[in-house]
């Protein structure tokens, strides 16, 4: 089996992750923050260690790391926690539904800026869309369907100059690209634990800037209210992060696995993982771009872990199904990113996405390309 759907969730997971999840369940899976006994304390210690590891990765403070279920959950908490009714928000045309749908559901006024242009032109367009009611920018760091990355440093600087909040969706980049919260002026960085940080499904998170340290966290609206393991007699959620936004029991085994995953990623090095993905990407594009029957989207942007394509005249779901029969896992359709597909012009059926992970090999790319030739003749 060849697994090329790492943008959805990475597979396989490192041995250290599997071992730590098992060790947690077997040995210390008490409820963190819900008691003073040794099991609760051991679980809490691991959760805190994970906050520290993530804080180092993103140049933030451990107390500013809030655990969620996944990136969608994180983005909902961040957007609804920071934005207010009536706000005007700018988003990019590469956004996932986890950004678009909460914004529409909450009734925020929003505008979309184009990312398929040079950085300077993009920044000019963003400036032109800022109005007196604009309060912030929410954007992805990297598209989940194609090799388009956003210059979050430049966008963050603009937010700083204009006094706007800046929320970044790092679902596809946490663990691949270095992200410095303060250098990029990011207020809230949302990430997945089960993608490029190589944890298991069930945990994601938000890293908040120092703007929300201490009691300043009261500025954040709480999306979910409930048990926090502290201030139990008070009617409202605690004022401090992370507990203010972590109602209910955390996914301790998943957080334990994430801790091992982040260590693994940092040990191998983000640059090494990124270079590996780029190498696989270029290898695949060399073959696909020379085929007249295959349309590759954004073929010039080769510094990525994602290849998006269609076989001309063939529905992408048929291609994915045929590849699956050959033992190759890819994802077809719209990938929860309707704005991005519209921007790329993939039509009414979407496209086929190949996404690489740290454990894919050049040999797998070659097998894929050979198999695609066979599939092309069969469909």
């Amino acid at each position: 089996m060849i697994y090329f759907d790492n943008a959805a969730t990475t597979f396989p997971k490192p041995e250290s992750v599997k071992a730590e999840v098992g060790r947690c369940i077997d040995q210390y899976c008490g409820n963190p923050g819900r008691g003073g006994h040794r099991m609760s304390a051991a679980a809490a210690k691991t959760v805190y260690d994970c906050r520290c590891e993530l804080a180092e990765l993103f140049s933030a403070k451990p107390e500013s790391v809030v655990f969620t279920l996944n990136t969608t959950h994180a983005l909902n908490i961040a957007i609804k926690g920071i934005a207010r009714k009536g706000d005007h928000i700018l988003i990019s045309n590469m956004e996932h539904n986890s950004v678009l749908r909460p914004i529409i559901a909450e009734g925020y006024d929003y505008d979309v800026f184009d990312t398929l242009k040079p950085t300077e032109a993009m920044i000019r367009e963003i400036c032109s869309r800022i109005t007196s009611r604009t309060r912030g920018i929410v954007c992805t760091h990297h598209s989940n369907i194609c090799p388009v990355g956003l210059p979050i440093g430049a966008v963050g600087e603009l937010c700083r100059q204009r006094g706007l909040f800046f929320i970044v969706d790092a679902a596809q980049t946490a663990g691949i690209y270095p992200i410095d919260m303060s250098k990029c002026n990011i207020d809230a960085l949302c990430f997945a634990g089960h993608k490029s940080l190589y944890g298991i499904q069930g945990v994601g998170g938000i890293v908040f800037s120092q703007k929300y340290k201490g009691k300043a966290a009261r500025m954040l609206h709480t999306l979910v209210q409930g048990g926090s393991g502290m201030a139990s007699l008070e009617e409202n959620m605690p004022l401090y992060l992370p507990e203010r936004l972590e109602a209910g029991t955390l996914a301790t085994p998943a957080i334990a696995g994430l801790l091992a995953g982040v260590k693994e990623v940092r040990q191998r090095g983000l640059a090494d993982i990124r270079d590996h993905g780029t190498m696989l990407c270029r290898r695949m594009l060399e073959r696909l771009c020379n085929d007249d029957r295959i349309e590759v989207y954004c073929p010039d942007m080769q510094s990525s872990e994602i290849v998006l394509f269609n076989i001309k005249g063939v529905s992408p779901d048929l291609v994915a199904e045929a590849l699956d029969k050959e033992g190759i896992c890819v994802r077809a359709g719209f990938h929860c990113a309707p704005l991005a597909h519209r921007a790329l012009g993939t039509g009414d059926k979407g496209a086929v996405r190949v996404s690489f992970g740290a454990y894919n090999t050049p040999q797998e790319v070659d097998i894929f390309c050979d198999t695609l030739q066979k599939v092309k003749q069969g469909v």
Partner: protein
Amino acid sequence: MVKSNDRCMIYLPSQTYAISAAKLLRLKGIGASEVKETDSKRGCINGVAVSCRDTAAAKQILISYSIPIS
């Protein structure tokens, strides 16, 4: 709040801050450790125990690192 003859409790807003404070105080050479909370209003660890002799120094360190004390 005095827990014993030679140990004092410094309360933090949450367990996260308590673990953070204990780690910081250990790094700074003040032998703090998380302790089992006995106040039923709190119900979980959110205090660090330090020597009574070190309480003032410990509080000063926590404040200088912007760690809130309850």
